[in-house]
């Protein structure tokens, strides 16, 4: 199949998955809608759908909503990082799900640095974020080394590790680090010079972390496709035996992929924390790591597509929260929509008949071209 047809197939397949998800969503909204008559319910459904799909981008008067769009871009920061982290780890065929605990630990570490380190502005945020990245990179050594040394499943290990990390943080926060003068459980306030400055001042929390996230998209893509280490990670992901036979240090590269994934997740946590909050109060897993997995899969493990996938997820998220604010539809609906999209993207056989038809068509065309070329050659020979 030629490149253009493959691309068309991917797009059609993606759109079909989204449309089916929306159809399911419409049905659910209709069920949730309040109203006595079907017409009432229908009208409510339409307005809810409008909020979901158009609300994030446009105000009710039709003007572009800068505030909403900035919110969406701000929400992209953490999931871009966890998406990149997951891309790197999944590319090596390592199903490490530790980006969730990683982003929490990164955020927590950066927060502590921001509170306690006596450093001047400019240097403090840098050091805090890097400290978060370093700690999470070290954390990922646990599943990575256990995998390469003892053959422990990195998936199970990293999944469990998320909860270990969460409860350690909770314990430290509750027992040792909480600001007792506050009504809720939170740390002391960050030093003001530790905060990452905002890009726009409209209350959207769109910090310069967004620009850093985009820079890391480029860096990660360069790393994966333009360096020998990224190459080694990808080859191991395609065929580990081939990589080993070719002289690639498989164990080392597997560790590397997860340490890098940890670094990216930790950095995302730090940037999110210092760009959005001025005190640390997360006492449960934030969910960005799970969304990161969806982002990585939507992006086909290619870092370049991560921002697109992250934008899509953030847009849906915003749409759902608007929908739950302005209509009676519960915001949990986004989880269902996400799950359905995810299901159809991950289902390898989805639309495989259509794909087979395209394949047959291209092959037949190619054959015809070849034959034409052959007969032309014969003709000229005569």
């Amino acid at each position, binding site marked *: 199949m030629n490149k253009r047809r493959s691309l068309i197939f991917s797009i059609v397949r993606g759109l079909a998955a989204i449309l089916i998800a929306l159809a399911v969503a419409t049905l659910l909204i209709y069920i949730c809608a309040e109203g006595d008559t079907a017409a009432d319910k229908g009208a409510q459904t339409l307005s809810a759908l409008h909020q979901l799909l158009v609300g994030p981008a446009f105000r009710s008067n039709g003007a572009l909503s800068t505030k909403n769009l900035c919110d969406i871009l701000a929400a992209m920061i953490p999931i871009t990082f966890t998406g990149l982290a997951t891309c790197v780890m999944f590319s090596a065929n390592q199903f490490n799900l530790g980006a969730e605990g990683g982003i929490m630990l990164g955020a927590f570490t950066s927060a502590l640095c921001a509170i306690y380190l006596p450093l001047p502005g400019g240097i403090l945020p840098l050091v805090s974020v890097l400290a978060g990245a370093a700690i999470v990179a070290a954390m990922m050594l646990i599943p990575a080394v256990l995998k390469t040394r003892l053959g422990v499943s990195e998936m199970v290990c990293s999944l469990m590790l998320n909860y270990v990390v969460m409860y350690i943080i909770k314990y430290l926060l509750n027992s040792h680090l909480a600001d007792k003068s506050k009504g809720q459980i939170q740390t002391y306030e960050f030093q003001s010079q530790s905060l990452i400055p905002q890009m726009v001042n409209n209350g959207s929390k769109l910090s310069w972390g967004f620009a850093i996230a985009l820079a890391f998209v480029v860096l990660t893509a360069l790393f994966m496709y333009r360096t*020998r280490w990224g190459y080694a990670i990808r080859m191991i992901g395609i*065929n580990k*035996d081939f990589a*080993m036979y070719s002289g690639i240090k498989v164990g080392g590269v597997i560790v590397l992929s997860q340490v890098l994934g940890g670094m990216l997740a930790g950095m995302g946590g730090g940037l999110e924390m210092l760009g959005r909050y001025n005190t640390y109060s997360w006492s449960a897993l934030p969910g960005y790591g799970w969304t990161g997995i969806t982002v990585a899969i939507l992006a086909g493990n290619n870092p370049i597509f991560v921002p697109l996938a992250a934008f899509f997820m953030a847009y849906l998220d915003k749409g759902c929260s608007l929908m739950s604010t302005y209509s009676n539809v519960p915001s949990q609906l986004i989880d269902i929509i996400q799950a359905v999209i995810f299901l159809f993207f991950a289902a390898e056989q989805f639309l495989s008949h259509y794909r087979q038809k395209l394949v047959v068509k*291209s092959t*037949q065309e190619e054959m015809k071209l070849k034959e034409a070329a052959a007969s032309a050659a014969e003709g000229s020979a005569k």
Partner: protein
Amino acid sequence: MAEEYVVEMKGITKVYPNGIAANQEVDLSVRKGEIHALMGENGAGKSTLMKMLFGLEQPTSGEIWVNGEKVNLTSPTVAISKGIGMVHQHFMLVPSLTVAENMVLGMVPKKSGMFIDSKKAVEITKEYADKFNLHVDPDAKVMDIPVGMKQKVEILKALVRGAKILILDEPTAVLTTQETTELFKELVNLKKQGYTIIFISHKLNEIMQITDRMTILRGGRSMGVYNTQDENPEKISRLMVGRDVVLKVEKDKAQPTDVVLRVRDLEYVNEWGKKMLDHVSLDLRKGEILGIAGVEGNGQKELVDMLFHLNTPNSGTVEVNGENILGITQRKIREKGVSLVPEDRMLYGIADGGTIEENLISDRCGAKHLNHGPLFDMKAIHEESDRLIKDYTVLCKSRAQQVKMLSGGNIQKVVVAREFSNDPKLIIADQPTRGIDVGATEFIRKKLVELSRSGIAVLLVSADLNEVMELSDSLIVMYGGRIAAYFEDTSDLNDEMMGEYMLGLKQQPAEQIGRVCHE
């Protein structure tokens, strides 16, 4: 009906999901009670066509008729119920069960409705074995019986299930000359009893020997049906490959010098306690091709695995230019100038989802000339891969094409291009031309000779007797994990002689074998 066809396949086209058109508008008509050859090079579409007849694959378009009835063969179960049986190239037997148990698998005779009646199973086996003159030992475990008998079990299995039409997929590929002769007798016998046999092969002499008619496939298309007795081998060969092939490789006499590879007393017992390598010692010198012949499963694979640290021996030493290579990483083995063309190219040889370029640079991705500091020097990498694609005539659209989209021969050329081009001192070529087309085979063989004459040591492991006898300067036969024979000169060898050593009927004395160590 003037002619009675038991199988008719009309206008069969099969396109695989990866876009490969394995069959295009192929017709096949088989008469009742004949041995019908399906001929063609590897990749011509023979196996695909037969998989569709046995219900393993469904055609993209076309019709299949069996006994004058149009059928829709959705699974092997359906095919079996229509009287079609298939003996696969790689046997589908359970090694830990006995012959009789394998025979009745899926149709087990029961005692009082619950327990397996093993006596009955043995009886059934004996009955069929006698009826068709295919002698097997019903109580032996399949893992302990020789390849020839495994094949008989497979044939019997199909017959027990009521097959009247037998498909044999390259049945002689794993057999020795003697076993092949026996198989042919059995097939003629079956034919006399009214069975129809479809015989897949690409070996001309076999086809000429036992078949009545043949259908020739080339590049997924049918080249027509012929009566075997009316045709000559040259014509068939032309029809198969579209040109006259000379598979003779010109080579000068080897001038071997220093020993490159030194193997001493290598021993290996596999996980089931079977001794796979038994005191294997050999030397391989610069500038020569040392062939290793033998029926598969006699220790060749294990020997190669040890040389490239894909497995670890129980004892023994392996040195390359005086340095140990046992137990060190593949990277270090490669640094000492060892290259391997692996037997299983899809497992070790390539990353099938990667591009051609990515597959060409895997052993040198850290090399200075391909990197600019931390980044790849893409220009240098493109140049290197374009050069290799050109030098090794890899047929492809571009270096960015996925390797899995290539044909078997071109995939092997990618492997060979990489393994031959990194300035090797020792090339281990394990079944380098298995399952690939004649053109690629010829190319790879020529290249091996050329490299050996330029002063590289080549260890050639091949189950293809012609290949190993044609290319090698000196030759070892392995049997039962041991070196059964060593021939310093390959020019006066013949198939019969080799067959006797390969089957373990003969064994050279130790001093003669010892001469492979050039102390």
